[in-house]
């Protein structure tokens, strides 16, 4: 794509793009840290995660402002308009991811069981899978790569498979280990949070695809 004749307009669009990426990187690290905090029971890290959530909200507001400014002052057309509108929607998906990561962190202190072992390997592998998808999602946005977005979108069914296994696994733990039912309930919620982070990630893939191609991804999302 060649550049705009008006370079200040080009800069404004690039700035919006980089603000979204900055917000994406922060959400990515919040999520990764929430899982580290969970597995290591690291309460200091929990506080850090909770403290950083405000920054995510700030970035979302900043993106909204940049979008409104672009629409007001530049009246973007075609791919520029699609990118501008998508940025706002991606930011709101990211904000949800940030909230879910914070929610995972908040539950850490209520979990009284050891997770860093074979019994709970599924929660680690599920979060690794979702982290990997989120990373690829943000890469697809960063490189304007709609094919990558589409492949992440299609791979969400693998996440569903692992999450379903994980939920079943946690229920089995609950049946066997009634005294830890509170901890395990929190883990159930955490598993759902991880799944939802995956869902938000695929939503972002849809916006990336839309802004580059000008059309929605065809068909329903593959579900396990």
């Amino acid at each position, binding site marked *: 794509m*060649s550049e*705009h*004749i008006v370079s200040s307009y080009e800069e404004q669009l690039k700035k919006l793009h980089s603000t979204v990426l900055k917000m994406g990187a922060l959400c990515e690290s919040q999520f990764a840290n929430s899982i580290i905090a969970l597995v290591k029971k690291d309460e200091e890290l929990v506080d850090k995660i909770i403290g950083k959530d405000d920054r995510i909200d700030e970035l979302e507001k900043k993106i909204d402002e940049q979008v409104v400014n672009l629409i007001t002052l530049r*009246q973007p057309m075609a*791919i520029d308009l*699609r990118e501008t509108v998508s940025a706002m929607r991606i930011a709101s998906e990211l904000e949800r991811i940030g909230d879910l990561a914070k929610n995972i962190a908040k539950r850490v202190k209520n979990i009284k069981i050891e997770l860093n072992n074979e019994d709970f390997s599924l929660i680690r592998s599920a979060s690794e899978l979702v982290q990997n998808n989120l990373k690829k999602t943000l890469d697809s946005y960063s490189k304007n790569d709609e094919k990558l977005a589409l492949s992440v979108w299609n791979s969400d069914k693998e996440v569903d498979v692992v999450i379903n296994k994980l939920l079943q696994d946690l229920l089995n733990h609950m049946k066997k280990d009634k005294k830890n039912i509170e901890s395990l309930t929190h883990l159930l919620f955490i598993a759902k949070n991880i799944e939802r982070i995956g869902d938000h990630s695929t939503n972002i893939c849809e916006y990336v695809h839309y802004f580059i191609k000008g059309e929605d991804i065809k068909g329903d999302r593959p579900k396990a």
Partner: protein
Amino acid sequence: MKNEKIKISTKNLNVFYGPKQALFDINLEVEEKKVTALIGPSGCGKSTYIRCLNRMNDVIDICKVEGSIKIDGQEINKKDVDVNLLREKVGMVFQKPNPFPKSIYDNIAYGPRIHGLADNKDDLDKIVESSLKKAALWEEVKDRLNQPGTGLSGGQQQRLCIARTISINPEVILMDEPCSALDPIATAKIEELIDELKKTYTIVIVTHSMSQAARVSQNTGFFHLGKILEFNLTEKIFKNPDNKLTQDYITGRFG
């Protein structure tokens, strides 16, 4: 798009100014009672194209127009067509408002008089009133119909010219940059008027304002170097054009 009635159909239209070819194989269909916007950089041929639709290029000696232009299925690009009758059917509004140096009343009454559309003064009064009403100018000028048309503001003059155009009951109205000399409020009034007029008339508008094309038209054609590169629903053109050059042009990346 397919179920609509085609008012103007252009096939393999080529236009030359002397040795220089200005339009290349233009194939374009204008739908009835719709607004068709033509966009493209200066010199791309969009004005040349609409000037073919009422044979305005006839007055340029070196201009040669080849190909077929049919209005309601009737060929207009041939020698034996009565251009006066054609121009009665296909009216035109120009970039700069150009009222006659006459009263507001006579600006409107001139056309109906020479075309014999009014039998008496009452008839003529009615035509003047209804034309000014259709052009949304009546309320502003009804008390000063005998004052010169050139004394009106630019926006009012342009609406006067539109009223003059519709006073002889045309079927098609061609507009060549009708708002480029007007302020935003006067522009909005013309755009509101275009919305209203399309219920009765087929409108073809040439504009350099992307946002105006987006606001007023249902179909948009993108001209470039004498060719029509893309003709599509307006929404499609401005949201997701098929042609890369269209996208470069409307997003300001051209060149």
